[in-house]
């Protein structure tokens, strides 16, 4: 894992949050 940066809080949170928001939207809109 050399040369691979540690995932900062921004990476982790933004990734998860975009996913959560999208899952939420899909369920509300029933796609």
């Amino acid at each position, binding site marked *: 894992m050399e040369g691979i940066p540690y995932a900062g809080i921004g*990476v982790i949170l933004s*990734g998860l949050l975009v996913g959560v928001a999208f899952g939420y939207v899909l369920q509300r809109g029933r796609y």
Partner: protein
Amino acid sequence: MNTAFRDVIFINDYTLFRAWLVALLIAIIGANLIEDLGFMGEDGLRRQVFSPIAAIIGGYIFGLGIVMAGGCGSGVLYKQGEGQFAATVATLGFAGSLIATYHGPLKPVMNFIKSYKVSIGSGDNAVDAPALWDIFGGGTSVKWIVIAVVAAIIIPVVLKGKPFGKQPKKGWSWSLGGTVVGVMVIVAWWASYYFGGQARGLSFSGPTIDFFMFALTGSSQAPFDPMFNLLGIGVLTWSALYVMGVPLGAHLSARGLKEYKLTTPRDASELLRVFLGGMVMGFGAATAGG
């Protein structure tokens, strides 16, 4: 998206199709706007290479798969959040065949189908990943003219559905849902570039591979996208993280609407069908390119 097109064909209901058009239009305009404003860095939106044969064959196979599996890539992910066990089974089939196609024994088949590519121009000026406007010469102003034409076609169809009419009692109206999905696509384009190191947007197949490769082997083994060391546990891409979030978000929404219920089909054959459907989807998605 599966539901949107199914409704048009089988019950002649254009509601979800209109929602899809709203999302599409907002996403096209917004994503190109943030690209032109310089928010997406030098590479911009990283458009895909255009392999028409692969897109048609892969798209057709994917279409067969989603009907069998009962949802597309995002569909089977979010339905798990509602407690539909069949969606979990479909996701496992989907992931398994995606990985077999991208990293495993089906890779030569995919590469063969993808080998026919179309680019515009030749030599150093060739556009390898052409967009619609590159046919008309490309450039920023041509791009926006083409987008305006697309908008002029889409908007009347959307308005015919009375987008500001009555709101449903539960969940969101199609126009609101479509708008929010469109905005989500723009946010995802930006966030995947800004935090993930490379623009990727709200695709699902590639990210599903990244997530399952990480979950099973400890590394997403993504060939192109930047990977991060997650707390020393393993290595993954930004997109693998958002795949984790989708069932969670859907679960929160379903809880909020009191719609969460763990369900399973009565027939075992039904589970087998969705599993096979997931596998068909995976191969189709990988071949079509996302």
